[in-house]
């Protein structure tokens, strides 16, 4: 089945089986490995991407359901070689240990800050409850998202 998806501003068209999950379409068909494939049960959030500006767990959506949609992955955060504030935040605050949850955390974190530029730490804690860090490094992840909140120059908009 033919599917055309705009990912990070670029049109991609492929012939896929309808059962292909969006995460595998991104990682395997398009060879974009920034999006991580984690628990496979929509619990961990490592595979979080934006579909038409809203976060989605891409292990639980068929690629064909994204037909005509605009998808943003972690690779889409960099603009003209400059890191997005959320990426700066994870760098400055050491917001990762093993790094597995990081792409999903950044997609959710940036979206949370876009939704509410004055978001509190407590609201961020709740906002990332669908993203699991198995290293349990949540304190620095919260610091990183707060950094993005405090350094938002909005180079990427959802």
């Amino acid at each position, binding site marked *: *089945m033919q599917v055309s998806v705009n990912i990070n501003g670029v049109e991609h068209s492929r012939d896929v*089986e*309808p*059962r*292909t*999950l969006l995460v*595998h379409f991104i990682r395997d068909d398009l060879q974009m490995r920034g999006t991580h494939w984690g628990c*496979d*049960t*929509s*619990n961990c*959030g490592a595979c*979080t991407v934006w579909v038409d500006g*809203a*976060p*989605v*767990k891409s292990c*639980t*959506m*068929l690629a*064909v*359901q994204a*037909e005509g949609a605009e998808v943003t992955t972690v690779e889409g955060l960099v603009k003209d070689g400059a890191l997005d504030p959320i990426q700066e935040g994870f760098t400055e605050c050491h917001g990762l240990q093993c790094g597995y949850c990081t792409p999903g955390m950044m997609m*959710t974190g940036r979206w949370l800050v876009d939704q509410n530029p004055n978001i509190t730490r407590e609201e961020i804690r*709740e*906002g990332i*409850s*669908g*993203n699991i860090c198995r290293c349990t490094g949540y304190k620095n992840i919260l610091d990183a998202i707060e950094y993005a909140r405090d350094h938002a120059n909005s180079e990427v908009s959802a």
Partner: protein
Amino acid sequence: MQTPAPVEYAKATSIADAISRLEALGEDSRPVAGGYSLIPMMKLRLARPETVVDLNGIAELRGIRVEGNELVVGAMTTHADVLSSAILFEHYPIFREAEHVIADPIVRMRGTIGGSMCQADPASDLSAVGSALRGTAVIAGSAGTRTVPLREFHDGPYETVIQTGEILTELRYPIRPGAGSAYEKVERRAGDWGVCTSGVFVVVSGGVITECGIGMAAVNADHYCAPEAEALLTGKAPTEENLKAAADAAANEANPNADQRGPVDYKRHLASELTLRALRRAVAASQGA
């Protein structure tokens, strides 16, 4: 790696289109709403539909409105929209309280109220809410639409009265001026299914409870409700003693199973305690209204 079995995909463009596709495809087809229940089941091969008919393109299935003395929620309205709805909150804070403890914020962006109702998981929070409020389901098929009380909507765990070629289009909840409502849930971790949940509404007028509804999830109560406990409360003063008696009666209407979430006596204790806490808060809200 979990991947669904081979499947065909069709995107419905309207309610009529969805119905005609599902009817033509027969019982091996399934409608997909948010997908956060069906797709994991397909990945585990617990569900193997030949075709999924995607309802996400049907705008007429989304939205929340007041119609006469009913609140009407489109079946494809997302959990996030139910959670943030000022209209639902004004009449029934139970919606916000229940939605706040369903899954996580990302799942709530795409998961829908109708998908949740039709999945009919025994621990479904919104099924307990719907039964507590005595809502109705509007079901559309090629022969027209029919309405079914939510207390008659389930045929058992994961089964509803919706037939092949039909889809749930709306959920309707009667507005009750002066009602107070509340939802209580104990879960093992944030976003999990409940060990036990209880959701209630009460209307207190002239010093007595004139109407009430008690819903419970995850404890195997018939149609997620506790009618004997409701009968005990109706017409009575909302004293602590009366609320406690009703909460104990509700616990007796639960038939919990022992599983990894806990033993039977613990779950029955929760059914009583959570119902009591929900009743206290709902009574206070109704008295303050």
